[in-house]
Structure formats: structure tokens, C-alpha cells
């Protein structure tokens, strides 16, 4: 039944991926990180909390007098400038960082795949114009766009909140998140568009595309149902590599104060607030090392998984099986 000859290319790639030990370990690590981040708020439930070590049950926003306490029995990761437990801050921040990475990558996926697929499918003059546009955007520093867009959005939000039809706090926060996602996605779709366009260009004159065109399929149907499924492998591979770069980008924006706004936190904003506390008298290393390690671990796992996926789907490794 399941002899290698009978498997689809995707199944074969999946088998190669599972046999790649570093990638498998990294997937497990990633699964572990994600589940910790998701399960961790449950520890504070009244039914569970008394049975767990006290260090696991601190809420992320409880301000206390225990400022800058080094890592110890009660606070495994120490406490920050407001006496908040750093372990809970890191879990909370990791959740938001992962969310930002996922949604931002999804936005860049939609823009990049559509742009690349349309350019590759139309070919000729449209392809030229659309890809020259990508070239132009490549030659501009993306950080400027993100900053201009986000500051404009923040100004508009401020105006909305002080206006006669004041926005609720939750609504404002939602809009802020949406703006951040849109901004991050909007500057990271270029490579995806180039990759997809190259693949679509090589597929669009294949017999199966001509066949469906002869059968009267619309252009949208041909692109979405017939061409894109052949590009999925490449898209997934590149998507896994986009998530870490968006998480990094967000941490940079947090450093500028444009990313996630306090009292919310991402790993980047935790590191940034740790960097603010650097002074030559006392070293609060835990404020940087723990969130930094969490960030590096997440990025490392994502990169290993992405590499494994790429090796597995790479057509050049096909005969290796």
C-alpha cells in the first residue's frame, strides 16, 4: 500500500521531514513552548493554584514592593522595576510575540501570494510592472514606512479616543493591534511575492493549466485551485521563515516604543525595558537574559523547523528520499 512509489510528493516530503532529527527536536520544542504559553494562565485558577509552587502562580500585572529581586525561590526569573514577576511577564510576552508573528506572517502571506501569483499568471507587461514595483520597494528602507504608518495610526487613535464618540479602551487596543499586524505584514511580503511569482511562471504553461482553461475554468479558479496547490510546499517553507523575522521586527518596534504598548508586553518590549535599566552600579541581568533567551529559543526552534521543511520540500533533494 504505502510503498514510496505510491506516495504523493507532499507525503514523501513529510516523511523526509520526520526523519530529519534536528527539525523533529525543534518541532517538539516549539510545541512545548506554545503549550506552556497557552496553559500557563490556567495555573492561577483557584482549583489548581494551591497545589503548585508559588512561583508559577504570579499574575503578570501584579505590582508589588519587591523591586528588582534577583531570581530565587519565590520568583524564578526575578522581578522587574515595578516588582512584577518576570516569569509570568515572559510567558505573557511570549504569547503576544507568537501571536504577532503568526498574524503578521499571515498578512504578508496573503499579500505576497496574491501579488506573486497574479504577476506570474498574467506574465508579460503586467508581470513587468508588478515586479518592478517590488524592486522599487526593495530598494527603500522598510522601517521608514512602518514608522510613518504606525505613528499616523496612533495619532488617529488618539484623536478618536478624545473625540465626541470616544472609542472604548478595548476597541482602541484592537485597532492598535490591527495596525501593527497590517504594518508588519505590509513590509514583509516582498520575498514571498518573488518566490511565488517564479514558481507560478514556471507552471502556467503546463498541460494541466491549459486543460482546465479549455474546460472553461475562470482565471481565479485556475490560480486558486490548480496552480497554487502546486506551490504550497514552497509557501509553507517560506512562511515558517517569515514568522521569526516578523517577531524580530516587532521586538525592534517595541524598542522604539511603537510596538506593543504598556501595560501589555511582548518579548521585545520586555527586553527593551530591561535595556533601560542598564546602569554602572547594579546589574539586573535577569531583565534581559530571560526574555532574551525566550526570544532566541523561539526563533531558533522556528528556524530549525523552517530549515527542515525546506530541505524536505526542496526539489533538488528529491532523489535522496
Amino acid at each position, binding site marked *: 500500500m504505502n510503498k514510496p512509489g505510491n506516495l504523493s510528493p507532499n507525503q514523501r516530503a513529510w516523511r523526509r521531514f520526520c526523519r530529519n532529527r534536528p527539525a523533529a527536536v525543534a518541532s517538539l520544542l516549539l510545541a512545548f513552548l506554545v503549550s506552556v504559553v497557552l496553559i500557563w494562565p490556567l495555573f492561577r485558577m483557584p482549583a489548581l493554584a494551591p497545589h503548585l509552587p508559588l512561583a508559577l502562580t504570579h499574575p503578570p500585572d501584579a505590582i508589588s514592593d519587591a523591586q528588582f529581586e534577583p531570581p530565587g525561590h519565590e520568583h524564578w526569573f526575578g522581578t522587574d522595576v515595578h516588582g512584577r514577576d518576570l516569569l509570568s511577564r515572559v510567558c505573557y510576552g511570549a504569547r503576544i510575540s507568537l501571536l504577532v508573528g503568526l498574524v503578521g506572517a499571515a498578512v504578508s502571506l496573503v499579500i505576497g501570494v496574491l501579488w506573486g501569483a497574479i504577476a506570474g499568471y498574467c506574465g508579460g507587461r503586467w508581470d513587468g510592472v508588478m515586479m518592478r514595483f517590488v*524592486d522599487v520597494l526593495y*530598494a527603500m528602507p522598510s522601517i*521608514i514606512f512602518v*514608522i510613518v504608518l504606525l505613528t499616523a495610526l496612533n495619532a488617529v487613535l488618539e484623536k478618536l479616543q478624545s473625540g465626541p464618540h470616544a472609542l472604548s479602551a478595548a476597541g482602541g487596543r484592537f485597532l492598535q493591534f490591527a495596525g501593527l499586524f497590517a504594518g508588519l505584514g505590509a513590509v514583509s511580503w516582498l520575498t514571498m511575492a518573488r518566490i511565488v511569482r517564479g514558481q507560478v511562471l514556471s507552471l502556467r504553461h503546463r498541460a494541466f493549466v491549459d486543460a482546465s482553461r479549455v474546460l472553461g475554468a475562470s482565471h481565479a479558479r485556475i490560480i486558486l485551485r490548480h496552480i497554487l496547490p502546486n506551490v504550497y510546499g514552497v509557501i509553507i517553507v517560506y512562511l515558517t521563515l517569515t514568522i521569526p523575522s516578523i517577531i524580530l521586527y516587532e521586538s525592534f518596534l517595541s524598542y522604539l516604543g511603537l510596538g506593543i504598548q504598556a501595560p501589555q508586553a511582548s518579548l521585545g518590549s520586555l527586553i527593551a525595558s530591561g535595556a533601560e535599566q542598564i546602569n554602572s552600579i547594579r*546589574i539586573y*541581568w535577569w531583565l*534581559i537574559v530571560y526574555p532574551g533567551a525566550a526570544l532566541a529559543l523561539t526563533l531558533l526552534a522556528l528556524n530549525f523547523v523552517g530549515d527542515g521543511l525546506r530541505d524536505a520540500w526542496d526539489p533538488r533533494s528529491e532523489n535522496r528520499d
Partner: protein
Amino acid sequence: MYFLKRILFMVPLLLLISFLSFVLVRIVPGGPFDRERKPASPEIERNLQAKYHLNEPVLRQYWRYLDGIVHGDFGASLKYRNRSVMDIIAQGLPISLSLGAMAFCFAMGTGIPLGFFTAVHKGALGDYLGSFLALLVICIPGLVIGPVLVMLFAIRWRLFPVALWGSPWHAILPTLTLGLYFSGRVARLMHEGMLATLPSEFITTARSKGLGEMAVLIKHAFRIAVLPVVSYSGPMLADLLTGSFIVENLFQIPGIGVFMVNSSLNRDYTMVVGLVLLYAILLLGLNLAVDFVFSLLDPRVRYE
């Protein structure tokens, strides 16, 4: 001839880039004077706007700006009103350039040997350790490495100054912070380039001629395997030379990376467009240089 055509093609591209960035900064809500104290009267505000032609249609403003550039004038910064954009760039660029060049040398000097070594010893323990190291430095952002280096080497052990710019001593920590990420990228590219080159027929030929293994690897394989690194070095240099906000901010270095961020925060549009143009010129010029180096390294590449 081919390269001449590419240089000529850069002119419309740069025009388009300046237009896009100008229009973006000007049409998005918010102006260069928003973050300052409110002017005493609407009268003063109007005069201020009129002085910098902010009340004109965007296209007219852009035309005025272009006219200035043609005459070699990139305008005055709207934030630092007594300094011109040219002044600020001329002051910060040499610092960012030297820091970027040092980080570039560091990235190349460590990344290429590491990638070469791990590829030659594929499957050995050294390969796993080296490749892991390369990926690790990619995954630790400068935002983390910088403060950690400062805490260890500058505050704890007092080996290097905490910040500022001047002696070569000051440059070591910023260079490391800036260069480590890129050395990881270079090592990975070099590694993959070697792996893709070693099975080629010309390597087999060189070996069957009886050449020593080192000669095969360095004289024959390296030349082709380094090509991915060469093509990455264009964008990498453009990023490095235009400064890094994080490094310049952490170490209080007066480069232009800080201006890149602050001018877009302030909507200082003459500054923004000037810096965008600087980045674009560097990137396009370096990509051109990369293609030129390509044709020297790989005899199979011909530009028509």
C-alpha cells in the same frame, strides 16, 4: 556597456523612489511640527507652514524639492532647523560607514571560514556545532546581545568603555553587536554554497587531475561557492553602512541610523527622503558592484 545601461536605469528608479517616499510621508496624517510646542497663535502656525511650503499641494511641494536636488540642495531639516540635510548626513555618515565597514569585515572574516569549515567536514561533530552556532547568532537579536555584552565586558569586567565613539577601543562592542548576526548569515550561505558546489563535475575533474585536496577546495570550489555570499554582501553592506538604530542608540554613537528612525518619527520629510535616497543609491550601487564581481569570479556569467 551593460553596466552603463544599468547606471542610466538607476536615474528613473531613484526618481520613483524619492517620489513614493515623499508622497507617503506628506499625505499620511501628521506633520513635522506636531510634536513641538503649539505655536502661540494660528497666525504663527500659518506663517511657519508657509515658510516651509507645507500649505501647497503635495505635487507642487515635490516639484520644489526636486528642483532643490537638481541644484545640489537637499533642503533644511525641519526638526533641526538651522542644519541642512547634507550637513547632518556629512556628519553622521563617516561614523556609520566606519562602524558598518568594521562589522562587515568581522562578518566576512568569521562567517566565511566557519561556513567553509562546516561544509568540508559535513556530518562531523564540528559541522553540527558550527552550524548550530551560526544559527544561534542569527536568532539572538542585537537588542539582546548589545546589553549583555555591555553588562559583561563594560560594567562587570570593565574591559571596554560602556558607550560613546572615538578610539578603536570604543568600536569593539558595537562592531560585535552589529556584526554577529551577519556573520551567522554569511556562514550559512557559505556552507550551502560549498555543499552545492562540491558535487559538481569540475571538482571531480580537478580531483582526478591529482590536485591536493586543499588546492581543490580553495582554488576551484571556493571561487564558485562564495557566489551566494557575494550576492548577499550587496544588501548586507547597504544595511550596515546606513547605520543601525539599535547599536547607535545603545552605545550613544552619533551615526545616521538614529536619524533614519527619528526623522520618520518626526515626519521630518526632507530628512526622510534624503536618507531614503542615500540608502537606495548605496543599495543599487552595491548590487551593481556585486554583479561586476560575479562576472570576475564566475567565468560562466556573461552580461549582454
